[in-house]
């Protein structure tokens, strides 16, 4: 198992704060032990970079502003290979540029955290306004097959909490993880409570043998996660984005090695999906209509749920905290209910939900730029109830 410790870091801002989601994300990263941030300014995530630029030099960490998001992503993979807990933050256009080295992080099993404060797209889209349209890009955006761990925080407090969790999962599984925020949650100011007693930190597994002894950098333990040797420790490792064997050596023309290595990389996450998946249930016990929502949209959905309950309608909500891995079993168990999926895109998570409820969902969509109004969701509830 990877090492678990209680957070004792003096850098943690203990106490209660009135803080934006972006700032809470940066503080969560620092509390998680992040000491390397590489990024490129982009609305609406720039405040994360700005806070890291101010805070990291105070706590002995490195802030590096790169020439673009391609370089930012490459730099955090490099820093993590040297042992740093590393993060970058961006929005849609930058997230597109990062896809290349996100693939490298998966293939080389390098832990790191990527924050996407989503805005309206495609292309430059709506830089200052909300979008939730990168939910499939985070799942499939880089080429090839890979398994994703992504969180969708719905408040500044969750920006803090789930940034820490993203680091812990990245370290535990040796994988990049994602915080899929949105403009609204990034720019909302709310109370954030930081209590070190509640913060548990996980660090990547280290080699079981000393340098000089036989060590294969991609030979897994029984949990399918290989211990990680860092650059400069003397293990003389080779790490490549090519298909490679357990020694780390290229095997780019050997389909059986591709099969073995890639299957393990998928299974190390998917076999543990029950330990990763998180969701929140609201009044599902007697619900005949169920809202499935995530991020800021879940807050509008919750308000609509309250209004509907006041009118005697049996409505519940399943809030996706991890859109990926998708809580498939929980969603499948809701298939008897009428399912409403509000989201600020043309219907992305709705497609995944429909695969599991095996019928069309009632979709409520806004294509970007503003949050769905609770009244719009309420109207859909009344229509299907």
């Amino acid at each position, binding site marked *: 198992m990877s090492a678990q410790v209680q957070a004792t870091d*003096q*850098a943690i*801002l203990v106490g209660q704060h009135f803080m934006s989601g972006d700032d809470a994300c940066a503080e969560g990263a620092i509390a998680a032990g992040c000491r*390397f941030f*590489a990024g490129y300014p982009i609305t609406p995530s720039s405040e994360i970079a700005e806070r890291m630029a*101010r*805070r990291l*030099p*105070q*706590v*002995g960490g*490195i802030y*590096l502003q*790169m*020439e*673009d998001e*391609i*370089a*930012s992503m*490459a*730099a*955090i*993979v*490099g*820093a*993590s*290979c*040297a*042992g*740093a807990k*590393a993060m970058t933050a961006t929005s849609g256009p930058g997230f597109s540029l990062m896809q*290349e*080295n996100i*693939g*490298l992080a998966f293939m080389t099993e390098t832990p790191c955290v990527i924050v996407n404060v989503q805005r309206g797209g495609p292309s430059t889209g709506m830089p200052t306004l909300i979008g939730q349209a990168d939910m499939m890009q985070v799942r499939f955006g880089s080429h090839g097959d890979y398994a994703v761990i992504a969180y969708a925080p719905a408040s500044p407090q969750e920006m803090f909490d789930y940034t820490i969790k993203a680091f812990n999962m990245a370290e535990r599984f040796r994988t990049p993880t994602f915080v899929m925020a949105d403009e609204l949650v990034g720019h909302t100011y709310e109370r954030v409570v930081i209590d070190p007693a509640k913060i548990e930190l996980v660090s990547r597994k280290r080699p079981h043998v000393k*340098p000089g002894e036989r060590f294969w950098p991609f030979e897994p333990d029984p949990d399918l996660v290989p211990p990680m040797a*860092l*650059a*400069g*420790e*003397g*293990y*003389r*490792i*080779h*790490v*490549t*984005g*090519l298909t490679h064997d357990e020694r780390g*050596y*290229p095997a780019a023309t050997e389909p059986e090695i591709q099969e073995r290595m890639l299957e393990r990389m998928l299974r190390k996450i998917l076999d543990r999906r029950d330990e990763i998946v998180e969701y929140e249930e609201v009044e599902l016990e007697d619900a005949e209509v169920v809202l499935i929502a995530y991020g800021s949209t879940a807050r509008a959905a919750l308000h609509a749920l309250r209004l509907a309950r006041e009118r005697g309608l049996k409505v519940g909500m399943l809030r996706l905290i991890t859109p990926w891995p998708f809580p498939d079993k929980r969603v499948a168990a809701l298939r008897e209910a009428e399912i409403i999926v509000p989201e600020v895109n043309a219907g992305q998570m709705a497609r995944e939900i429909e695969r599991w409820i095996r019928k069309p969902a009632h979709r409520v969509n806004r294509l970007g730029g503003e949050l769905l109004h609770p009244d719009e969701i309420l109207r859909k509830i009344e229509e299907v109830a």
Partner: protein
Amino acid sequence: MALDLREVITEHHPEDELLREDRIPHIWCPGCGLGVAVTAYIEALKLASAQIPLEKQIVVSGIGCTGRVAGYINVDSYHTTHGRAIPFATGLKVANPELEITVFSGDGDLFAIGGNHFIHAARRNVDINVICCNNFNYGMTGGQVGPTTPEMAITSTSPYGNMEEGFNLPYLAAASGAVFVARWTTLHFRKLRDAISQAFAKRGFTFIEVIAPCPTSFGRPNELGQGLDEMEWYRESCVIDHQANLREIGLSMRKDSKIVVGNFLDIERPTFLDRYQEVMKRAQAAGGKR
């Protein structure tokens, strides 16, 4: 006098300790210059090993024929994505300043897809070494035109001649902020090895261009002959001039042209981490733990 071959042919190659023996044979073609460049690097690693232990030496490559260097050298080695070796190495270096990091990659990788990263890393003066094997084309993919292909040279995607001018790499590196800039060919083995040793000793962003034959993909269409013919041509046309005006040392690779080589630039400038130390002091004095 008869030569006793048993004394000449040994079981191990003299560089075996620093080669990943189990990965040999390599993928490079007969006559390719990369073997010479790798040997020069390995010799420099050995010469520096009293000052820089081998476990602190790291090699990072991008993609392409030169990109495969990382896979053959028996130190910690990272084979990254196309063009991204420099930003990857930047992350490695600033996260662990004890490492001596050398980016070993090709002209297409470093100066076409990776060109932006090169100029910014030089500007930042990140303390890494960049060795570029320049063979004037994309060898691995079959000899396409690249950012250093000389004008009117024939490649598989410039079949009637290249209409673009190639980069003058030492000039670009110096203008971007590198503190050490050299150019040698694979003929100048000892000069190249010594330049790499100098780069190891130097703090800051260093750049060495290694002109290397690619008889298979670039030599053939341009009638440069075999690898050995190209080495002979280097001998005839190279001029060592450490004080050369860098503006004037662009390469045409025509048989009648000169190739200016040398250690052109060696200056001092604070590195990224030097200045970052200053920034950390200010941050800690001003804000402390907040």
